[in-house]
């Protein structure tokens, strides 16, 4: 039997299109590997047991709690974090821009998880009703902004993605 405490695994991840080969203990959570081994700290760690939603990322295009997946289990998978949403020229993606326009964040701690959950909905169901948006976001907790503006932002982001029209911002209006 191997020495469990010192057992490590070589893991290949593609994060936001970039290949990462990392060497991690079996117990390392994907959330910690993204932050510590890939150096991408946009993914936030809140409760670490799947309740708060702050660590939500896309794994092979499907939303997942990165604190509820082992890094070693994600070997060979394609991960998208909030950093991967940035568009050419360092522009915010429509959903991120909508969060800015709607004042969908204050402290910003829950925002990466909110945005990653919203991306999936806005991509597959861009014309979701408010009820559907609220049902999606019931797995993401915010403790300061309140949910009204977050729901507005997701709906605006979805409309922008469906229409392909940029969101009118305070600067461009």
């Amino acid at each position, binding site marked *: 039997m191997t020495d469990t405490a010192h057992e490590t695994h070589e893991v290949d991840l593609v994060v936001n299109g970039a290949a990462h080969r990392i060497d991690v203990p079996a117990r390392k*959570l994907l959330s910690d590997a993204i932050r510590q081994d890939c150096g991408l700290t946009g993914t936030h760690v809140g409760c670490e047991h799947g309740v708060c939603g702050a660590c939500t990322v896309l794994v092979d295009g499907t939303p997942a709690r990165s604190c509820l997946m082992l890094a070693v289990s994600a070997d060979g998978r394609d991960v998208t974090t909030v950093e991967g949403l940035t568009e050419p020229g360092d522009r915010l993606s429509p959903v991120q821009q909508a969060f800015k326009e709607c004042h969908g964040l204050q402290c910003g701690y829950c925002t990466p998880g909110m945005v990653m959950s919203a991306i999936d909905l806005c991509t597959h169901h861009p014309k979701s009703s408010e009820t559907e948006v609220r049902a999606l976001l019931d797995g993401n907790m915010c403790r300061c902004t309140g949910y009204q503006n977050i729901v507005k932002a997701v709906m605006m982001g979805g409309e922008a993605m469906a229409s392909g029209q940029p969101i009118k911002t305070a600067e461009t209006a």
Partner: protein
Amino acid sequence: MKPAPFSYLRPTTLDEALAALAEHANAKVLAGGQSLLPLLSMRLAAPAVLVDVNRVPGLDEVRSDEDGVAFGALVRHAALERDADARRVQPLLGRALRLVAHPTIRSQGTTVGSLAHADAAAEMPMVLTLLGGHVTAASVRGERRIEADDLYVGPLESCLEHDEMLTGAWVPALPARTGAAIDEISRRHGDYALVGVASLVSVGESGAVESVRAGYLSVSDTPLVVDLSEAFADGEMSPGNLAAAVEVASAAIEPDADIHATADYRRHLAGVLTRRVVAAAHASLTTEGVS
């Protein structure tokens, strides 16, 4: 918190997975991980070995026919919830899956994993029991079928041996002239329910109520199903009979108190939901057509 150290194995065949479970006494199967990872991170569980079965082929199929719905150990809640044939053959599956945790959890968590986790506060063990389904357990010693009634033996405890893993589950089709409904009350959407109730109501050719059964969440150590038919002896879905059904249910359940609800409050909720869900199951017969 972080999980305690463990060894990690990722078999690529079922035989390899079963051999690993046979070899290591303190091993756990990792499928969707949506219940296991929190247990590890909170150090409520510290297995020596994790056997990740996610790369084992052949366990991710949903097969529906007129008899029922079979689904493999790697079928995610979201995939089963989306499966149109499964929803048609056994509508209670999709209705219950919508109440399981949050969409993001459902996209990774497996329904069979939830059945193996054996939580009497979770929807799917209760639904399996109410429907009279079964699971298939495999080990190096062979395969066995376990009826839902025999699967659950205590809080978070199933009759699975340490070297066994569930490879799939099956639930029967909704019988003719039968309606199904489920509802629950939780403090926040997606939380564990304070109380949940699912019900199957069957009527005869004349439309008279013949059988009423209800399953209960969070009011007992193991998934609980209560036969409420005696309250409907005259065949009517009447307010008086529903009140009698609440009495029958109340005598059968044994809710515990915790920081979220007193036992009396849970008992009250069980009564409210019994009335609501039995009536909804009966009403679904007319809205969905009797076939």
